[in-house]
């Protein structure tokens, strides 16, 4: 993982004007200095089958960022598609679970965590950068299932993108500090429309 904690993409470096190690404020976002190397294209999935990945994908679309949404991406698919020419370079995992239709029609969060941990392990091996994002706010931090998804994924990230309104208890700040993971806070989901081009050097 250390190897991947490079000093950001060229464009970001330009923005920071050579002081990459220090945090910078760009367009209202506080960007930490220890950003991992972020290269397109992106594949996005959720840990809990919420609509977060879809939202992320829609935003990428509107911002012209190449991204693929795979709600139930398996390790096999991931590995096989990461070996081609158009291989994914960033794996985004959106945390928080969907519970519409509790019970038989609902989501088994444990199997979702298992699937995503396997994806993370594969990503490590393949050198794919892992972003763990909580972008839907308090709606995806209400119950035990959300918590399981968040607590399993957050410590595994190379970069955290977090809605500031779910950090009331300081959990995300604490984990980021403990694990030395760079973290960027957003106020609203739509902020990603401005943030992602900055991160991927598209401005």
């Amino acid at each position, binding site marked *: 993982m250390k190897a991947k904690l490079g000093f950001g993409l060229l464009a970001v470096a330009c923005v920071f004007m050579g002081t990459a190690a220090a945090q910078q404020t760009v367009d209202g976002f506080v960007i930490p200095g220890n950003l991992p190397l972020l290269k397109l294209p992106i594949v996005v999935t959720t840990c809990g089958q919420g609509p977060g990945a879809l939202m992320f994908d829609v935003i990428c679309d509107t911002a012209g960022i190449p991204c693929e949404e795979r709600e139930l991406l398996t390790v096999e698919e991931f590995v096989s598609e990461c070996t081609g020419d158009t291989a994914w370079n960033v794996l985004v995992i959106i945390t928080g679970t969907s*519970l519409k239709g509790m019970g038989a*029609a609902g989501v088994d969060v444990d199997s979702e965590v298992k699937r995503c941990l396997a994806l993370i392990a594969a990503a490590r091996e393949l050198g794919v950068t892992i972003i763990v994002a909580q972008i839907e706010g308090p*709606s995806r931090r209400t*119950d035990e299932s959300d918590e399981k998804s968040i607590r399993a994924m957050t410590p595994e990230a190379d970069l955290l993108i977090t809605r500031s309104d779910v950090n009331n208890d300081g959990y995300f700040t604490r984990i980021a500090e403990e694990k030395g993971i760079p973290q960027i806070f957003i106020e609203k989901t739509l902020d990603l429309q401005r943030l992602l081009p900055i991160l991927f050097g598209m401005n």
Partner: protein
Amino acid sequence: MRLNKEWTIKGIAMAVTGTILVLAGIAFAQHRNFKEEVVLGPGVTTVRTLGDYFAPLKGGPNDANVFILDSGEPGGTMLVLGASHPEEPATSLTAHLLVENATVEQGKLIVVIHSNPSASTVTRPGDAYPRFFHIETDWGIKKFRMGDRWANPLDSWPDPETYVHFPSGQLLAYMDVRNLNRTWPGRSNGSLAEQTCYAFMRLIEAEGVDIVIDLHEAELEYPIIGTIVAHQKALRIAAMASMTLTAEEFRIGMEISPLALHGLSHREIGDHSNAPALLAETPQPFLDRVRGITDESLLLTGKDEFVMKAGEFGLLYWPIDESGWPIDARVGRHCSTVLKIAEFWTLFNRSKPLVVTSVPRYADVVANGTGYFFQDPATASASKVVYE
């Protein structure tokens, strides 16, 4: 002597019971026969009824009014369903408000105020709902029926031992055979609610509906609240509507309609017609099981100490404080949600634009009150007044 004493008591008991029955009977009849007055707004071009699309419903309890607001300009067609569950009054109020205010510049808007009219003519046994609720307007008090979640047993009797959903075969609770949001896509020879859904599906075909919005309210203990639930065909519209509403007006989430949960509008309409369906939920503390005194006040203010206490214990999926969840905030949320979905429909379907104007947004409804947007039926011409 003993016989006399016995009959004295029995006689008194009969008189008391008789009085209770007469007074209760009057109360039930008042509720069942009360008609809400709707003043047709400038946008309404035609008023039909569900029976026009499925003849067996004609003249029956669920021959709901269908308000058509046609711009005459080509574009998309949106169907808005109010009061699928009449115990969720912000939904019928929003639909009512649309009918009295909306104008359509491009495309066509179809609004149903009471989607399951039968369910709006009955109070729920054991739950102590009020029969009516009242909204203050500039010209006086406007009165509305408070209904139930299920169609009136007087119109749909008996229930099966267990309700087998058509066509999936999924089992649901027996009374849900009268629940309009469990009987989609319906069947022509089924229960009243199933036939009503069937009629709506014919309406969707006949009018070329492109998108359906089913309005609802939910208890704060329930996970699906303050959100838009979307069929797979409408995910992008829902995602954008949810994100922009949250950024611009109020927090609202999004859920994907689960494939394995049957009978609901957001699942079946999308699966069985060309129109995707979205379902919008607002918070209604009145529906919470832990609620305190059950009355019109709770219905309209959404203020409840017990629900707040449950919130302090982290048992709610949606926040609540002393200001409660007043009806104006709930109606306002639905108004903005409908408008935003229409906007994104247009954005994603440039060839079929749907432009709706003159509808207040969230901030307008909260600032002025819902009643501000209702017209006075007394001053409107008789031809402009329709009874719901």
